[in-house]
């Protein structure tokens, strides 16, 4: 028991062998439910998908037509899949340069004791409560091209002399429309994450900066943002994974069209696996998506660790 009092040296304490044995037993007990859920509902389906991805299989009857890596070959040479990957990256980039800065700005704006703060906070978070399909339905109606039906074109055509925009019907506008809807839905969630992070920065640090004569912008740049880095990492991580896997909202809004202009990897997978009944092929797409996410996840954690050894990604 004596080692407990070695001046709070946690490392030494935690690594003591008796504690470790006791911890292992407890951990086993505490992790069993999670592991059961994971092996049954996640690991097992992943293994199944991997297995089927080597077959040319419609999903009916046993999978017998083994094709090796041919599905993968076809996917990786398909220009539509390349488009899907590109669109995924586009959403990632747009999220990082538009959505995240806005949500940080919002969080900073509504943090002070200003009147109406909780009202704004509640409203900004509200879209997150909507399901993706409902959000999609609402935004489809906003983007209707006919100005007498679509609200956004009704506003747009108030400018004299402009033609109504085609929005979801135009291959070059559709991704922007989809991104606006995605931002609308997820802005509040990220704002909330940042508010949590901000609440944790002691006011004294910023006040000290004020005394040193720093401007608002200087404070945010040199004090607030660096202290927010842990939250930013979590938010970026969740945002990138969500962007890469995006399905529901886009499916409702554009079905990946027109002519594949808003295709994402998950939509590509669904179209092949479910609509074209090429299930083996669809599984291979799923495996590739998983790998891309995995590569991102691992390299991101590496990167973050290199930057700041102590600040863990999720802590």
């Amino acid at each position, binding site marked *: 028991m004596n080692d407990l009092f070695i001046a709070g040296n946690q490392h030494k304490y935690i690594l003591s062998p008796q504690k470790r044995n006791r911890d292992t037993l407890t951990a086993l007990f505490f992790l069993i439910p999670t592991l*059961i859920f994971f092996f049954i509902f996640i690991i097992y389906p992943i293994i199944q998908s991997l297995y089927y991805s080597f077959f040319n299989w419609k*999903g009916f*009857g046993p999978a017998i037509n083994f094709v090796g890596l041919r599905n993968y070959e076809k996917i990786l040479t398909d220009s539509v899949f390349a488009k899907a990957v590109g669109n995924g990256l586009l959403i990632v980039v747009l999220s990082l340069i538009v959505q995240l800065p806005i949500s940080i700005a919002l969080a900073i704006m509504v943090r002070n004791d200003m009147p109406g703060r909780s009202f704004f906070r509640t409203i900004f978070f509200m879209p997150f409560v909507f399901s993706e399909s409902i959000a999609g339905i609402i935004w489809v109606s906003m*983007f209707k*091209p006919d100005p007498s039906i679509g609200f956004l074109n009704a506003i747009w055509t108030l400018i004299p002399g402009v033609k109504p925009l*085609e929005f979801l*019907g135009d291959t070059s506008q559709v991704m922007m429309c989809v991104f606006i809807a995605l931002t609308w839905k997820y802005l509040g969630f990220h704002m909330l994450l940042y508010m949590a992070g901000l609440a944790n920065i002691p006011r004294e640090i910023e006040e000290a900066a004020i005394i040193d004569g720093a401007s608002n912008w200087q404070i945010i740049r040199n004090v607030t943002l660096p202290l927010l880095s842990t939250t930013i990492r979590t938010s970026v991580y969740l945002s990138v994974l969500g962007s890469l896997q995006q399905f529901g909202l886009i499916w409702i809004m554009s079905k990946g069209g027109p002519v594949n202009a808003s295709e994402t990897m998950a939509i590509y997978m669904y179209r092949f696996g479910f609509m074209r*009944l090429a299930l083996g092929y669809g599984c291979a797409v799923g495996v590739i998506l998983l790998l891309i996410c995995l590569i991102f996840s691992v390299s991101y954690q590496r990167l973050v660790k290199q930057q700041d050894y102590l600040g863990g990604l999720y802590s």
Partner: protein
Amino acid sequence: MTRKLSVILSLVLVCVFAVSSAAYAADKVTVRWWHIFTEESQKAVCQKFADDYMAANPDVTIEMTVMENEAFKTKLTTVMQGGNPPDIIHSWGGGVLNDYAKAGLLRDITADLDKDGWRDLYGAGALETYGAGGKNYGIPNDMGMIGFWYNTELFEKAGIKAVPTTWSEFLADVQLLKDSGTIPIAVAGQDKWPAMYYWTYLASRIGGKAAFDAAYDRTGSFADPTFVEAGYKLKELIDMEPFQDGFLGSIYNDEGGLVGNGKAAMELMGQWAPTVQADNSVDKKGLGDKLGWFPFPAVEGGAGSVADAMGGGGGFIVGKDAPDEAIDFLKFINTAEAQATMAKAGMVIPCAKGAEVGLTDPFKLQIKAAVDNAPYFQLYYDQFLPSATAQVINDSIQGLFAGTMTPEEVAQAIEDSAAEELG
């Protein structure tokens, strides 16, 4: 190791959560009936069939699962892939049914149809839609065709005297409509299938039955001149920009609304079009007596006749594990009387002989006559062909409408898929 572990864990889960499936007494038979009549009054008709049958056969339970179109397809695909078909299943026939039959997921009801003259209730062509490889797996319930639904008032205003019977007349009328300041045609580009009708109808008018059959049995090809020319003919229309703004992002509801509210002059659509137009119009009535219908025009010099029809409908197929009671129930919901009831409720254009008495709508009668008298009836390409090819057809034709694919590329893309799926 992992496998063993997961087996053990699954067993644990089974013990913890398994719910006894022996809810029904052993001697009671359950018939699982999946259909897509979600609308309240139509669902009630189905429920009444089930209730009446259960009242007459107390040892049978009819379990109805009703799902909306898209959800139904997703669910059925998963369940079929899981090897566990329900007993009576809504079906559109064609390529998907073929896949099910090949995988042994359906029950062969050829012998049942031969008994007591059940077979004679239907036209041979309609019944064939629900068969594969010379065997019957189901029966037709609804059969109609695609044609142009138009607004007679807008046609008059544009100075069109008679409905077009040839493609060049049609194009000229489109120009007249455009000049008169209306949207000539509404089309749902995002949904793809409404756009697909144009190309497939043109192909059928140009090449007739022979061209399609040759491409299908692989003595010909979908890259043959017929199918390339269909693309060019269609391109003539597309280049006139006859559609509503942003049509590539429109869904079928939008299309129906545009015609139903008198904003667009026509749409190429199936027997259900007037209902959807009415549902999406301000007064819920649609075009009323301003509505007109004409068949897809002939292409000059084409092998197909203007009387040839392209269409489809719905039917019911029987799952592999279906008990005999399921077939008995299927007969029960498909007698001439039952079909007449469904026709009266606006659910179907009936296929059972003698059920026409339920039809009062003049357009539906007109369509039924056109279907019955068609020298060549073709099930929609996207139903008839294997799912993969069907999707390629829809995707490529969308490309043609968007101007990103040429007629040759469209034909070649379809041929590539057909070569793989049918070859």
